[in-house]
């Protein structure tokens, strides 16, 4: 008649972080490839052209890596002092870099020797960039000036001194060749228009600015400095949109992903954070050292992070193809003959259908439960693989046995080995709020059953000792939590003096119960 209803495994959602599409997207990277550079990696820039090579500025060199190569395919080493800010032109053929000595060099990607040298800065040049027309280079220096250079003639077109401290951030506009944004240690972010020759907008960041970034629409501007990341709306005259404080050390770099324009920020606190469009952190990459520079390849294929210890860590995106090849290699067998043949047959209209009864497939423990073999079912549920990777299945079987009133029978008559298994499982999961209730019952029953013989086995005794310790600790913790709740309650009560209805957390009662049951079991253990 009615078929056997299999044991229901309760699916309980984990508390805490929720899995969103963003997290899934950003989790989908392989483990990072580490490349050792000669010094701190200060700048990474991806070529806008198809192979998307990237230039890594570290110490006195600029290395150009291919997307999947771990050896540089080209390197520029003709720097006498530390090089800074190597960045590509819009067509990916030219590269410009500043240096500690104040010289700015212009390289052809295929050549080795600098095509041009721009001299004029009196101090180190930390940021250089092409303007979007490709014929001019803008550079910001520690001598508080930034200068615009003409590429063909290598002459200085203009020099503007508006900042009052080192200039460490620069972002040229991609839509207008005359616009660029600078950030400086004087806490300001300025937007310059070359046509007027002076700043057209000034924003107070409040901290030394380490990095500025323009959104592709160029309506939003990101500036990082101190622990803050600020988003400015340029169309509203530089109004501050959001101020984010998610890092606990200086935020040194920011970049945008090309899919969905998600903001990524890297900081000296060794974290890269990914924000969603409403500026909530959706993902977090951990690194080994403080982060100085970061870049994301077009299509988010690669996330490259440069650190103070001179390590460049490169994360590649996982692709479905890789997975498929892996699984297809594993699966081989009589797939068509067994699984497909005849299954897709569509009966015609006047065919007489004789349906085959659908066979119900049961798990092993269900089969044993069906035939009332309770001890065996518990053994099956306590098998190593189930116990470790799917504890909820084990607990579901325990609950089912308890419901059938046969949990005691299933637990009785065990030897030291299988009892150790059960106790280990208890030790591991007894505090999981999802499982604690049934497991406390199990603990109670085990103690009742084996009270007389426990002393014969030192192993079991040691485990019980541990269980007692752990339970005692848990009881203490619960006590403290209750105290905190009490404090909170008084706070809430004082906050809402007139309201008759008290807002209450869901926990007190449950915690109380939990606490009581925990302490009762620990008392039991103590007795033994």
């Amino acid at each position, binding site marked *: *008649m*009615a*078929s*056997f*209803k*299999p*044991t*229901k495994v*309760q699916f*309980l959602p984990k508390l805490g972080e*929720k*899995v*969103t*599409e963003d997290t899934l997207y950003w989790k989908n990277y392989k483990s990072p490839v580490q490349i050792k550079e000669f010094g701190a990696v200060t700048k990474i820039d991806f070529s806008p052209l198809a192979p998307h090579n990237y230039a890594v500025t570290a110490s006195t060199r600029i290395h150009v890596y291919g997307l999947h190569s771990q050896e540089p395919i080209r390197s520029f080493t003709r720097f006498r002092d530390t090089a800074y800010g190597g960045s590509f032109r819009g067509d990916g053929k030219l590269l410009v870099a500043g240096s500690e000595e104040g010289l700015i060099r212009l390289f052809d990607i295929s050549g080795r020797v600098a095509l041009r040298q721009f001299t004029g800065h009196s101090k180190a040049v930390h940021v250089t960039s092409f303007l979007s027309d490709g014929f001019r280079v803008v550079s910001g220096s520690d001598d508080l000036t930034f200068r615009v250079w003409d590429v063909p003639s290598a002459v200085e077109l203009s020099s503007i001194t508006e900042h009052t401290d080192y200039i460490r951030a620069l972002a040229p506009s991609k839509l207008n060749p005359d616009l660029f944004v600078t950030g400086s240690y004087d806490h300001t972010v300025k937007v310059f228009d070359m046509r007027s020759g002076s700043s057209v907008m000034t924003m107070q960041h409040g901290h030394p600015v380490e990095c500025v970034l323009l959104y592709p629409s160029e309506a939003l501007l990101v500036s990082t400095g101190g622990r803050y990341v600020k988003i400015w709306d340029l169309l509203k005259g530089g109004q501050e949109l959001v101020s984010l404080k998610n890092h606990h050390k200086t935020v040194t770099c920011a970049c945008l992903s090309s899919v969905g324009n998600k903001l990524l920020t890297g900081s000296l606190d060794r974290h890269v954070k990914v924000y969603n469009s409403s500026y909530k952190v959706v993902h977090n990459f951990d690194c080994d050292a403080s982060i100085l520079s970061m870049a994301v390849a077009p299509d988010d294929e690669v996330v490259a992070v440069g650190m103070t210890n001179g390590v460049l860590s490169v994360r590649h995106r996982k692709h479905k193809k890789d997975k498929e090849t892996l699984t297809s290699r594993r699966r081989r067998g009589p797939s068509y003959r067994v699984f497909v043949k005849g299954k897709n047959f569509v009966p015609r209209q006047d065919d007489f259908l004789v349906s085959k009864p659908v066979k119900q497939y049961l798990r092993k423990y269900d089969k044993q*439960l*069906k035939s009332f073999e309770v001890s065996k079912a518990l053994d099956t549920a306590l098998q190593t693989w189930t116990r470790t990777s799917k504890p909820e299945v084990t607990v579901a079987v325990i609950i*089912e046995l308890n*419901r*059938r*009133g046969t949990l005691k029978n299933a637990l009785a008559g065990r030897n030291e080995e299988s009892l150790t298994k059960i106790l280990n499982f208890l030790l591991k999961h007894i505090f999981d709020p999802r499982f604690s209730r049934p497991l406390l019952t199990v603990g109670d029953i085990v103690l009742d059953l084996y009270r007389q013989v426990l002393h014969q086995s030192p192993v079991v005794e040691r485990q019980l000792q541990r269980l007692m310790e752990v339970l005692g600790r848990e009881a203490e913790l619960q006590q403290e939590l209750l105290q905190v709740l009490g404090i909170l309650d008084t706070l809430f009560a004082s906050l809402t003096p007139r309201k*008759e*209805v*008290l*807002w*209450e957390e*869901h926990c007190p*009662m*449950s915690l109380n*119960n939990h606490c009581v049951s925990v302490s009762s079991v620990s008392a039991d253990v103590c007795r033994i």
Partner: protein
Amino acid sequence: MVETSDIRVVRCGGSKVNLTPPIISSDSRFVLCTSGDLVKVYSTRTEEWLHSLQGHTNQVTGITLNPANHLQVYSCSVDGTVKLWDFIDGILIKVQLVEVHETVEIFLSSGLCVSACPECFQLVSVHLPKSAEQEVEAKEMSAVSSHISKNPSCTAFGRGGEYIAFARHLQLNVYFFRKQKTYSFSLKATDKKGAKNAFTCIACHPTDDCIATGHEDGKIRLWRNFIHKKEYTYSTQHWHHNAVNTLCFTPEGTHLLSGGIESVLVQWQYGAGNRKEFLPRLGGSILHISASSDGQLFCTSHSDNKITVIESSFKVCGVIQGLVKDAVLTDLMIDPRSKALVLNGKPGHLQFYSLLRDKHLYNLDIVQQEYIYEAGLDQFEVVKAAFDIKGSWLATVEERGKKSSDLEFFLKLWAFDERTQSFVLNTTITAAHTDRIISMCFSSSEETTMLVTAAEDSQFKAWCQGADADTQQDQNFWSCDFVGSYHKLNPTNCSFSADSSLLAVSFQEVITIWSPDTWEMLTTLCQPPGVIRDLCFGRLSCSKYLLGTTTKNLLCCWNLLTCELEWSTSVDVSKLQPDPFSENVAAFSYQSKHTDLFVFKPSEPRPLFTNKNVCSEKVHRAVFVPREEPLNSCDESTQWLNRSQLYFLTQNMDLLTFSTATEEDRMLSSSKQLVIDDSVAVTPFYLLLGKHRQQQQKLNTQSHPVSDKPQQTQGSVTIKELLHTPAHVLPAASVLCSMFVNSFLISNTGVQQDPLSWLT
């Protein structure tokens, strides 16, 4: 006081079909079973209820096929009669009155003999006189024994009625009719292992001298050689872990069927020791088993008011399900879509029962766990259920654990699936509250659905349906919206107003009124002493009133506009039930061992209708069921039954209702109409046209009283003759023709009259 003459309490549908063993007709086409004071005939193929044998005036306690004529069936009843029926046509053939004083139970096991048990449970053999009269009094009686168990399955006829075996406690007796002698065999009270040896059922082998007995500890004993007092033997077989409820030999005697609380049908091979087959999970514990005379079909009747038809190959081929009302824990509810009555059904299920057709519609599995048929096991039961106003959501609470220390319960929400036309599980909430849920209701607005649960942990919670913003998935699961409490008092009841703009939650003696939009407490109402027991808002024109009943015999009505007590009376109300289609509210009050019903409008304290002494038990569950077509009675006392019908369940689990005189008239007239003309198939089309034609005929006869009538009849007779006579016996067409034409001529008398009338 309003007169109550034309409204009476009627027992309605859903009587037990599992009281006695069902019987299968010898051609295996019908299953007969007793149901209240009826014998119902079902088809084995389609499981449809065909018709019922109506005539007994009290509970029918036994049926058996007439051994002399396999198309007839004997039935006996507590009213002291034995009736013989033709069950295919449903005709009563014979009535035999059995003079038994203070009849408690009568059961019938063979056409030869009626066994009757008067007050002290005596086995009496009654000779049924053979006479042609329709009503006969059977006077020839002889007592067999008084050592007889109350349980009818402890008595059985053996080998074509040569002897009768009956058992009581630990003694088995066999009475031989020929010798008029009783042999008795007894077992020890306890076995070595402390087994309980009391007899629970008996079956006799149809051809062999063998008696099978079932025992309380689950053993089956086969007794042989019982003609001798000392040299009897028995063999024991044991499979059942609890008492054997019933035993049955197949007609050839090759197999023995047994069943018990485990709900497993066990087939033992007779004479082959321990070889057996099983058919598990039939639902409900097996109470009776019967086999058809050709051995092709078996029937089992179960404790959940169900009859299962099983083929001899051990395949279930039909289920006849009655209304299950053994342990009703939920309220009576009406499914807004199907208008079916919803209440606890099989363990862990909700049953949907059509009251109009008296038919079980379907079971909805709520618990979705394997039910273990074992006595004394504490398993999940559905204790609360509620529908939203459109019937698209169902909320259920299932509970396990009688003591509050190991109480487990789940709150489940079910969405109606249009495609499969049934409810699909949407959300399971494992720890909705920290203690037992006491009351639950859906908001009554059509746009947004909200569920409010009140529990013993002194909180009430509002649950809303909403998609999660973060995951951006369109999952419509339910989550908690608001948690409210009032001075740490335990809530007792909750109710939404008709437009769901207000929520009333009663906390012990205090009623709090909340606004579900802002979750602000608007006001509190209190009328001590006494804890609030029931709470309901008025409907339609009375929606400004809130009614509450307390444990201290008080029925109060508050005006929500002024927040003042409008009126109150001293009535001990056990159930307050508002009618969703009118302003009326029904209140059942229990006083001095009988229940009274008051129907009133909240706006006026004077009751519209009062019925004293509705029944003798307390009423805790009642429901208003909307009628398919409203009655239009103008009588003040029956007006409240115009749009809906009031059903209620007493503590003895009798489902009762009120029926009005007009309703009964209507039913009577319709049944008469069906009886009058049985030569023509009665289709709705016929009824429609027939009425029309009758009216036309009336008109015609009024206008042409003389000329029309004869002509019509004559013509019709001839044509009928012509058309209905088979072609091969008709005379030649040439002979017929003149006759046929003649029939159209107007008869002489008519012709003579006509010119006269013209002349004058």
